[in-house]
């Protein structure tokens, strides 16, 4: 299958983006370079094309009851115009996907899902619709989305709208924000560990919004930013990536993300029984952070050893652009996750010493 182009494809090419096929989409991995783009987001602002993300709407009388059954977090705990992060699990506790849920009203919700999982998620949701009185709609192709991220985000975006953006608190959104003359939904969310906004517009309006934001942010040093730094930024901030820290084979509890799994939620939910059992019996492995004590760069998939015995593998690893250190996450034996414990990461068949540290690499 040929990869799809987002409405911003031509802009990426014009800006010199290095285009790759990511999850079936032609997207820029970088423009100027991963490191300067990473630094722009930490220190000023960066603009990401995230139009590839999937948008699925659930509406109807039973929308809340259905989502409570489908998802691990407590969707009843948020108000209208508020957002919650959650997992959607299989009966065995493995993860179908992780995403944000936007509450439009008591009877209507938007799920913003991983691009690579959109079709799978949609099918899973239909397959588990049961007798709930709801409609599920995949609106992914109609919606364009950009993310402006970094400490200067509010200042820059404010130039393009009369809506007071400071009124949108973290994990909240406003569905009627006029940006560049286009009615958008704006949420104070992101995937970088920095302040910022995600702007959703009709697909045909997103090119104007993209160009206007870049122009408005010029004097504050905004840069177009690619998928490359999107991953280093989320990783430094301790955020998981589906397929790495969580997957159909790695439960949210093993991923160290129990906070988003409400085992004490009144309603039954898919995966509850298995996750409850796993928690009660005790985890056998868990994702831990580590820092290399010797030279080298840990990469996803590298094996981790303790005294010659294999104890797990690296789920994400980088030379951190912010910290200038080789750090990573590894899914390892539960007996080895203690902070300060020393393990070996195998890099090209050579054991390299590492120390277990907190996964919140970025102290803010």
């Amino acid at each position, binding site marked *: 299958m040929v990869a799809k182009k987002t409405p911003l494809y031509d802009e990426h090419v014009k800006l010199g983006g*290095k285009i790759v096929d990511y999850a079936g989409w032609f997207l820029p991995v970088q423009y100027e370079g991963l490191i300067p783009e990473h630094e722009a987001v930490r220190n000023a602002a960066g603009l990401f094309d995230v139009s590839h993300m999937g948008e699925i709407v659930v509406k109807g009388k039973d929308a809340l009851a259905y989502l409570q059954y489908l998802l691990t977090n407590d969707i009843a705990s948020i108000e209208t115009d508020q957002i919650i992060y959650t997992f959607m699990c299989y009966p065995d506790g493995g993860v179908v996907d992780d995403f944000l849920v936007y509450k439009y009203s008591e009877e209507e919700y938007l799920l913003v899902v991983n691009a690579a999982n959109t079709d799978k998620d949609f099918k899973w949701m239909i397959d588990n619709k049961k007798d709930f009185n709801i409609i599920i709609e995949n609106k992914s192709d109609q919606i364009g989305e950009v993310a402006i991220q970094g400490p200067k985000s509010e200042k820059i975006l404010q130039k393009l709208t009369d809506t007071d953006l400071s009124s949108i608190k973290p994990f909240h959104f406003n569905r009627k924000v006029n940006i560049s003359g286009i009615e958008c939904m704006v949420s104070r969310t992101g995937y970088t560990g920095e302040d910022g906004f995600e702007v959703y517009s009709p697909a045909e309006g997103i090119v104007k919004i993209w160009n206007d934001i870049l122009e408005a942010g010029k004097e504050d040093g905004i840069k177009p930013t690619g998928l*490359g730094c999107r991953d280093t930024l989320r990783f430094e901030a301790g955020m998981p990536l589906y397929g790495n820290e969580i997957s159909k084979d790695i439960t949210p509890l093993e991923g160290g993300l129990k906070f988003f799994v409400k085992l004490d939620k009144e309603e039954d939910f898919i995966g509850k029984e298995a996750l409850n059992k796993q928690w009660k019996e005790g985890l056998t492995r868990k994702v831990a952070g580590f820092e290399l004590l010797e030279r080298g*760069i840990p990469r996803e998939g590298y094996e981790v050893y303790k005294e010659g015995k294999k104890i797990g593998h690296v789920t994400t690893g980088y030379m951190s652009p912010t910290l200038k250190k080789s750090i990573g996450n590894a899914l390892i034996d539960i007996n080895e996750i203690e902070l300060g414990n020393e393990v070996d990461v195998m890099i090209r068949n050579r054991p390299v010493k590492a120390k277990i540290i907190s996964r919140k690499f970025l102290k803010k």
Partner: protein
Amino acid sequence: MKVVQGLYYTNDHEWLKVDGDEAYVGLSDYAQDQLGDIVYVELPEVDDEFGKEEVFSAVESVKAAADVFMPVDGKVTAVNEELLDDPALINQDPYEAWIVKIELTDKSQLDELMTSDEYEKFLDEEV
């Protein structure tokens, strides 16, 4: 992409510059551009011996790790330790930032490598 005259090239994008019975080996401009910002270089030890096409070094950007292959048989006589502290030298000037210097085991192997003109054509046609 810049190709420097008078060097030999491989289709894995290493260059080799002959200096008497020895030669410098590094990565081409095309290779560094493909990798992006280089943040780490792993070097062999002096006196290590490598066969043609054997991996002797690894060069890593934030995003990717790439093996570096020996263009011909040789024994390492020097390594560029400057790269340990400043791996980005390869991005800045790939044809100055040599990785190793080797003693050539068999000079006739040089004929199997591409000339700069051939490499330029290779980049145009194959890549």
